[in-house]
């Protein structure tokens, strides 16, 4: 009888502690989820897009210029620390290039738009591919966005754009 009462008492204590911990869990989840939704809204207002591509030829050396538009529609100041562009022609990899701005990040203040040009110099081994290829190119531009409280996040934009050929 005494043991049974003790057992019931023990279960009641356990349930009370569990209830208190569940309240702490709800508070923790509520605060974190609130910040998470805020950060997700900021992330959703950042857009990157490939606007166009230009290829110029100088002494049989090709240089590809990719016009990229970065828009920060959020209320946070963001910055891009690095980017990478990859160029494909007729589904075949042509070349890629890394742009590292870790020392001097590309600032994107709140509500700003920034148009940048990424240059890719095609090596000699690929000049034939560019010279004989078609005019519809696939571009993949990725980058690392530095967000306050979230650290660096990867963004990727792909586009199939008609090429404008020119001679320098």
């Amino acid at each position: 009888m005494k043991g049974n009462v003790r057992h019931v008492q023990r279960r009641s204590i356990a349930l009370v502690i569990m209830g208190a911990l569940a309240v702490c869990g709800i508070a923790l989840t509520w605060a974190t989820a609130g910040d998470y939704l805020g950060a997700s809204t900021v992330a959703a207002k950042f857009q990157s897009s490939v606007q166009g591509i230009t290829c110029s030829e100088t002494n049989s050396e090709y240089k590809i210029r990719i016009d990229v538009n970065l828009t920060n529609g959020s209320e946070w100041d963001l910055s891009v620390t690095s980017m990478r562009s990859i160029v494909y022609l007729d589904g075949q990899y042509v070349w890629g290039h890394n742009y590292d701005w870790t020392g001097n990040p590309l600032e994107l203040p709140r509500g700003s738009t920034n148009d940048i040009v990424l240059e890719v110099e095609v090596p000699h081994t690929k000049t034939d591919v560019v010279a004989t290829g078609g005019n519809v190119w696939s571009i993949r531009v990725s980058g690392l966005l530095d967000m306050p409280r979230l650290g660096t996040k990867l963004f990727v934009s792909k586009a199939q754009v008609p090429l404008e050929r020119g001679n320098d």
Partner: protein
Amino acid sequence: MERREIVTGVILMGIFLCGLFTCQALPLLAPLKVVQEYGTVFLFLGAVVTGLLLGMLTPSMEKGVYAGFASIVLGLALAGLILALPALLGIAGQLGVVSTLALERALILAVILTPISAVGVFIGNLI
């Protein structure tokens, strides 16, 4: 009566673990600095406490271990729902705020936490 208490306990501890799983997956967004820095440690302690309290609810070791596992699974499922909230609310953009690495880490932790909660159940049975 005992079964109802165990189910209540599983739900309450699942909610508690959900908070810890969420903070562990999003450490930089956690409200307390101590949770930001020691999120995984808190999760391990949370698993021990979960097992201990469930062990206090039932004298059966087997039932306690199953209840501990159910709490961890419930906590993980609720945390997954929280992490999927932006996509569910239609505010997901070009950026992935949660890395797949964080999700994989949470799943691995859930597997590791089950035997840890079993240790808590054992201690809870002794009390």
